[in-house]
């Protein structure tokens, strides 16, 4: 079934371990320690991957994301196009989530295995489409005729489920694109907000996502006060929607400051070292 001659294969069928005490019980009410509109601290470190044009390592909560940008490079044997092409590939490392993500099963069976953990998780191709949409407005692709820009993302640890994860990936990828020195309209910040019992929770944890009525990820260009992408699940009434957007807007500005400061420090450091 999951035999692949290109890998070292384990036994044919394996089972997850059942714990007597459910581990998730103690993380249910984590919001006690932070306010509803408070973000978890973000750590960004650009330039970690030596052979990439630009890269960024991001930690938010206990999520860990590595992101690298390669290019722009010429597409060989392709018809002329007046704009560049953005290619985003997202990969979960097998140990990134509570239940092991089997690399052999990714794409077909992965969702079914994860269905027990959360019905709100999606596979990586869908996620990469979302992130591409969120990043496109920030890039000046018209400056890169006939070129391709590759963005590779590896999720080392996932602590926010797909909606929050998508926001984090967008932030990390946007930073990596900027550190690659590409022509951009602005820095992108992505952020998830969940509606739970008439409360809007910014940057929700997996437990909060599971218990929410609605969740949406908003990706913005805070410097231009533009929204590049919204991805939503569940229903929100119009007034809550507006409220959510205004909450996200102010938080995105904070993220923007963090990204800008990080990039500034990075460029200052590299000036000193050269």
């Amino acid at each position: 079934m999951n035999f692949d001659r290109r890998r070292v294969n384990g036994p044919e069928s394996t089972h997850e371990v059942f714990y007597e005490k459910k581990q998730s019980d103690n993380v249910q009410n984590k919001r006690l320690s932070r306010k509803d509109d408070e973000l978890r601290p973000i750590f960004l470190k650009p330039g970690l991957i030596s052979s990439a044009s630009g890269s960024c390592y991001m930690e938010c909560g206990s999520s860990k994301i590595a992101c690298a940008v390669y290019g722009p490079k010429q597409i060989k044997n392709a018809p002329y196009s007046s704009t560049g092409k953005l290619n985003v590939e997202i990969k979960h490392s097998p140990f990134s989530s509570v239940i092991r993500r089997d690399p052999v099963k990714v794409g077909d069976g992965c969702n079914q295995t994860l269905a027990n953990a959360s019905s709100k998780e999606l596979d990586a191709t869908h996620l990469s489409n979302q992130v591409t949409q969120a990043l496109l407005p920030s890039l000046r692709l018209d400056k890169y005729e006939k070129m391709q820009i590759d963005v590779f993302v590896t999720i080392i640890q996932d602590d926010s489920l797909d909606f929050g994860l998508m926001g984090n990936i967008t932030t990390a990828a946007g930073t990596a694109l900027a550190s690659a020195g590409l022509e951009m309209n602005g820095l992108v910040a992505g952020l998830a907000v969940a509606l739970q019992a008439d409360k809007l929770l910014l940057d929700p944890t997996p437990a909060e996502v599971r218990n929410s009525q609605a969740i949406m990820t908003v990706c913005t260009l805070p410097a231009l006060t533009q929204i590049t992408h919204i991805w939503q699940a569940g229903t929100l009434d119009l007034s809550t929607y507006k409220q959510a957007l205004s909450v996200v807007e102010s938080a995105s500005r904070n993220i923007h400051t963090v990204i800008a400061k990080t990039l500034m420090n990075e460029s200052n450091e590299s000036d000193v070292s050269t």
Partner: protein
Amino acid sequence: MSDVAELSSVDYFAYAVATWATGTAVSLLGFPRLITTLLLPYEKHANGEVLPKTELNGFEKFLATQSSIALLAAAYLLLQLVDWLTVVNADPPAIAIQASKRGIRNHRTRRVFRSQLLRRQRDARPAGQGALHPNSAAELVGRIHQKTQMDAATYRRLRPREYLNRYLDSDVRVDGRALLDFRSTAVNQGSIDTANGSAVVRLGNTTMVAGIKLKTALPDPSREAGYVVPNVDLNPLANAKFKSGPPSDDAQFLSSRLNDILLSTAVIDHTRLVIEPRKAVWVAYVDVTCINYDGNGFDAALLAVIAALKNTQIPQATYDFDHDKVVAGDSTTPFPLNKLIVPSSFGLFGGKLVADLTDFEQSLSEAQVTVVITDKGSIAHMSSQGHSLGSSIDDSTQLIASAINTAKERYTTISKLIS
């Protein structure tokens, strides 16, 4: 790059010849007349027309010749300026190579290039050169400049083997290490909460993350033992040469080598991974993800695996016969490791043993040797790939002995990093 160089240098040559020829022709034939027309006094003819003087006296002839020479000199200077601008804008080292290949017959062209090259050399040579140690990398770069008259990065790209040999001949590496030095190594264990055990290993720029996920399975009827399943993912994120898709040949080779070594060195006590005989055993999925790749992936991957296994805690589990499943409790035991193993890989360049190759060195090495050392400095595993090790038996023995000695030293430093 070569396209640009060829085009501009050919252009350049043709342009120079053409202008020179035209200039000469004009100055010999028509110039004095032209100058005469423009500069010399006009005379009024009998019919009333105003025309230039046709008959020149001695002074006027002298003036005409002088001004044509001056004009030519001005044209020449203008040409020089134009050439200089083109050379500055084009890729100078590329042109320099092209020019040196052709041997530059044209005197003027060579002069332009020479001034360019001198300028580049002066810029590239480090300040305060005299104070540097003769073997330092910076000094070597300077010497390469003098010999080849092209900049080090270009030389490295065009003639990687010669570039590397210049360093190795002086017993120093491109990054300034001695031949048997390893890059700085850092091990960070237990940073990933979703894994049962994890480790991040950095070997210079090479970064590998290993995570262990425990699952349960039915044991193989023929042997009462658990499973350890190592897999390496050479992520396209880590290096431009890795492609996305199913595991590449390199990744497959790394995975199977890891599996081989974990089994052959008996580093893991598989029998202690049994939960209930004939019913349930532990399966430890050891997944290694490469985050940044700069050579010597094997050492980094094996170190990451060992450090992650050391970090792993196995829950105290019992088999529930009624419900046919494994139930895990709160208490844990460390993963059953018999010993510690530490890998050291070396490359061979013209009979010289070089430790911990970078990606650039690895692509040029003739052969590679890996020595895995275990407790008490004994050899747990040895392997070599590539061409023959040394030219004779004596030679090989010597190389291997030196590899083993270095690997033993490496064991003592690395075993302190892994807790």
